[in-house]
């Protein structure tokens, strides 16, 4: 049981973005290979291009509020990633920013609202349903795990850890799915048996959050 009242500070958000960028760089080839199997083999390259750009932008906003920081992350992704994941991850961060405007610290409830806002953005933008074999399939379980943890009065650390586990499960659960959105959908039945690259990068989002945010 961690400290229930511990909050997510602005500096931790920055650390999280840096940790996620590092995880993407580390998994660039892995993500790209996953995308080669059912897409066009660029997901790792796309994400890495975006987060390398984010890293160069971060210092100039590191003394602003969390909303401002997340907005810059989102805007940078939108203008550097391209493809499907650019607008989707971009929207995710921009919508997270809407809930964190002016804030220097986030409670667990704030975090839940923030993720929920991000996910809503992704769904509105991409019109995917759960089970369509997309990044939603790891974000949604992660959000649900956060809510359950909060309902059960768990600590921030526990909640984040539960969300990372749920995202991981969601990611693995994409393997048998037949894709219905994005480029993988052109493969129809042939997309089954492969893990979705976007769901994999999204899992890394929650994994790194669990590692550095508490």
């Amino acid at each position, binding site marked *: 049981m961690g400290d229930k009242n511990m909050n997510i500070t602005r500096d931790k958000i920055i650390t999280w973005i840096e940790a996620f960028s590092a995880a993407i760089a580390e998994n660039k080839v892995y993500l790209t290979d996953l995308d080669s199997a059912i897409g066009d083999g660029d997901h790792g390259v796309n994400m890495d291009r975006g987060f390398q750009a984010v890293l160069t932008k971060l210092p100039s906003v590191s003394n602003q509020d969390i909303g401002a920081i997340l907005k810059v992350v989102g805007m940078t992704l939108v203008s550097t990633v*391209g493809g499907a994941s*650019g*607008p989707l991850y971009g929207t995710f961060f921009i919508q997270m920013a809407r809930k964190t405007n002016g804030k220097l610290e986030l409670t667990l409830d704030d975090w839940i609202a923030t993720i929920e806002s991000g996910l809503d953005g992704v769904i509105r*933008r991409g019109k995917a349903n759960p089970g369509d074999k997309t990044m939603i399939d790891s974000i949604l379980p992660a959000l649900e795990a956060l809510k359950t943890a909060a309902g059960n009065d768990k600590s921030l650390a526990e909640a984040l850890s539960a969300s990372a586990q749920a995202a991981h499960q969601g990611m693995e659960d994409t393997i048998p799915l037949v894709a219905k*959105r994005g*480029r993988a*959908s052109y493969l*129809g039945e042939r997309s089954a048996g492969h893990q979705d690259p976007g769901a994999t990068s999204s899992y890394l989002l929650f994994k790194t959050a669990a590692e550095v945010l508490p």
Partner: protein
Amino acid sequence: MKKLINKPDDVVREELEGIQIAHPDMVKVFFDPNYIVRADAPVEGKVGIVSGGGSGHEPLHGGFVGMGMLDAACPGAVFTSPTPDQMLEATKAVDGGAGVLHIVKNYTGDVLNFEMAADLAADEDIEVEAVVTNDDVAVQDSLYTAGRRGVGVTVLLEKIAGAAAEQKRPLKDVAEIARRVNAQGRSMGMALTSCTVPTAGKPTFDLPEDEMEIGIGIHGEPGRSRMKVKSAAEITEMLATPILEDLPFEESDEVLAFVNGMGGTPLIELYIIYNELSKILDKRGIKIVRNLIGPYITSLEMAGCSITLLKMDEELLHLWDAPVNVPALRWGI
């Protein structure tokens, strides 16, 4: 990988520099974000037409910027959708006060990025309409997919919508004509070889020396089925039949027949395909009233071709024949 390039990461920028130096009379090229606009943009009172997509499909879209066709093109990385900031800048640059039409090929990335660009343009009080092309009959179950891909019809639509805009028709009209072109056009493609994305350095797929892919898209992705190489007559039949039956095209229809090279196939072969296509259409009583033969929407150096048929009417004929003066198409001027 053997290509006439310097560093793989510099391919798109250097290509754009080449276009800039080659065609200053027709286009202006901007960098960071990258976009190409016609030299005299914005044209006062004219609907601006913006398209864009991944690079590697040249001359699509940059080669179609100029009088009578596109006002701007946004090139992404090779086979990767461009980003909304490019599209926004392009949209602002060509807005002549009559609104802007976005021509978007139906790929999730392109659609999403253009949607965001449209939102951003709306914030700046520019009226934007988007038309999405989805003419690829190789994608069958559009219910369970991201829908049919936008391919060859895009070229024809850009020409025809461009002509309509040049006549200073209002945005609604231009968009309506563009949607009609999309609705009346169908395409399908095939490949004899894969292609190599410069940053990847190796062919996207392997194709044995005696096999071909039928039903490919334009991003080096494998197609609907793989089989032994067949004759030009058989290949043309395999591409034309699904196209003809999909719309369907019917006896006494008048069509524009577009035989497109994928980048590595020489003209001599495209004329052989065109010859076969004309026999097939003849047999069905379908009349070719216009044609386009050459590499216009390509997949880097892929060998192969695609066929697009567009059902024509008086208005589309008139717009197709209207003057155009862009790097890759020129007539009537």
